[in-house]
């Protein structure tokens, strides 16, 4: 089964069904008073995490103390991490706290971007399959395509995102200087759950050299706390490679990729928008697009579930910082000598969900039965049955996972038709 970076803590779940209602792949149900996840459908987008009122949904990250298993402890930090602090802290101050925590080298993730942009443009120019080419940046989108839009699996860019380019650079750089690779630990601070899932259970046949993933919320809190109890003794033990280019710092914001791609490229963010767009693309209502930047979160990574600051402020801060940055970052030449921006990956395999049955004869029977059941159900998607919609309940019933008795509204109508019909009308129950 697929590795997921989101887990429901049963002891904390209050069964309120909020997560179930927002899940874009209808992967959640409430049963026995608790939310349960259908792992085959979950794409790790984190919409459920955002709405959980009891913090019952947690992100499965790596414990920060494991960094001490390595002599060299490299932290790859997305630019967004710095942008959360607004004007309160300077870059030097943040970095000094991170060194105190125990990291020996700090680098920004988007250093690999400058190299990658050229490779993506080359890739699109020579791409012979159907367009648009779809960005490989957002792992939740890749998983969504595998599950809900398998027809586009072939169109996903088969180059790895900047994080992997940068990770590869540092690994090569240490190797080049004669450091045994067992001593080198590469860690990544993630703004979301999907990136964890992507590193732990990669698609496209590439095994990441990243040794661990640190939760951005936790690290933010640590830095903030340490800064408050400030002790100003920042002796750095290694070089700081935190420099970035304009292109790099804005890469993870909406339009950050699309604006650097030649040809007609579009940027779409947030799960409902991405789904709507892919449906239109599938219907061939939208044509003539060369490249699609698709991001699961609203405001892209600025709206990541582990980002602490308001997403609009994070975006503003990144844009401001970009003004003072060079077009190419100072390490670009070194990157070009040390590593390749072109890390190819295999074709991404679709894993389309089997909704009714893999045998089309049985699937058709069940679909027809489900349609018949939907005429009995009130079609108000109240969620009181523990499924996100009347349609989902009907499907669950025909697949033997629920029964018509789950519909509380039918019971209520039988008990007191007048009251229920006063609210929902007569027709709803006599279709």
């Amino acid at each position, binding site marked *: 089964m697929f590795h997921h970076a989101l887990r429901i803590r049963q002891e904390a779940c209050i069964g309120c069904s909020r997560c179930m209602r927002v899940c874009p792949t209808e992967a959640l149900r409430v049963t026995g008073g608790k939310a349960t996840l259908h792992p085959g459908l979950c794409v790790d987008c984190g919409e459920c995490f955002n709405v959980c009122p009891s913090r019952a949904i947690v992100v499965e990250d790596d414990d920060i103390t494991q960094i001490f298993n390595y002599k060299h402890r490299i932290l790859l930090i997305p630019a967004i991490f710095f942008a959360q602090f607004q004007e309160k802290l300077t870059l030097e101050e943040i970095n000094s706290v991170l060194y105190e925590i125990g990291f020996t080298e700090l680098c920004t993730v988007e250093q690999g971007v400058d190299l990658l942009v050229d490779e993506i443009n080359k890739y699109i120019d020579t791409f012979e399959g159907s367009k648009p080419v779809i960005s490989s940046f957002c792992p939740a989108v890749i998983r969504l395509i595998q599950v809900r839009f*398998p*027809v586009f699996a072939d169109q996903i860019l088969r180059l790895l995102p900047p994080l992997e380019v940068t990770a590869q650079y540092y690994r090569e750089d240490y190797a080049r200087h004669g450091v045994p690779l067992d001593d080198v630990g590469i860690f990544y601070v993630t703004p979301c759950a999907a990136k964890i899932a992507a590193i732990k259970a990669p698609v496209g046949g590439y095994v990441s050299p990243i040794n661990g993933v640190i939760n951005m919320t936790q690290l933010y809190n640590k830095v903030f706390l340490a800064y408050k109890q400030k002790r100003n003794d920042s002796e750095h033990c290694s070089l700081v490679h935190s420099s970035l280019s304009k292109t790099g710092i804005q890469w993870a914001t909406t339009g950050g990729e699309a604006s650097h791609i030649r040809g007609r490229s579009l940027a779409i963010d947030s799960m409902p928008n991405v789904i709507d767009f892919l*449906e239109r693309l*599938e*219907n*061939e*209502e939208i044509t003539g697009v060369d490249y699609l930047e698709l991001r699961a979160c609203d405001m892209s990574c600025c709206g990541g579930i582990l980002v602490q600051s308001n997403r609009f402020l994070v975006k503003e801060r990144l844009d401001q910082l970009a003004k003072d940055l060079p077009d190419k970052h100072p390490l670009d030449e070194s990157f070009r000598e040390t590593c390749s921006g072109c890390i190819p990956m295999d074709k991404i395999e679709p894993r*389309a969900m*089997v*909704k*009714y049955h*893999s045998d*089309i*004869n049985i*699937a*058709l029977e069940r*679909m027809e039965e489900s349609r018949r059941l939907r005429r009995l159900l009130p079609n108000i998607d109240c969620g009181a049955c523990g499924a996100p919609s009347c349609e989902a309940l009907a499907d669950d019933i025909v697949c033997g996972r629920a029964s018509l008795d789950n519909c509380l509204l039918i019971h209520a109508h039988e008990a007191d038709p007048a009251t229920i019909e006063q609210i929902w009308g007569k027709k709803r129950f006599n279709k």
Partner: protein
Amino acid sequence: MAGTASSQVKRALKQLGVDASVIKRVVVALYEAEVNIVAHAYKGIITADIDPERVFLRLVDEGPGIEDIEKAMTPGFSTASQEVREMGFGAGMGLPNISRNADVLNIHSIPGKGTTLEITILIK
């Protein structure tokens, strides 16, 4: 609205796990046929019948009908005005596109009354 029927049929076929290339042909053929009804006819009824072997689409409209079916099947032949063409429609590819995607296509038309299209696309 043109596109509604093709979206619904697409959704059902996806749920049934029908091969993506087959779904694409159904969607393209049905969408073109829907656009024809919206663009030319006064009213139309679309039915889709799915069984394990094939998708059968029947589109019955009340409208102007097609004067010369053979001509209408010629790629590039169009009755659309310059204005409509500038909007990106009426390129004369509607029926040719449907025919290219269908395994069997039957057209019956009575000028002044309406047109019936029967499209069969095999699932396997």
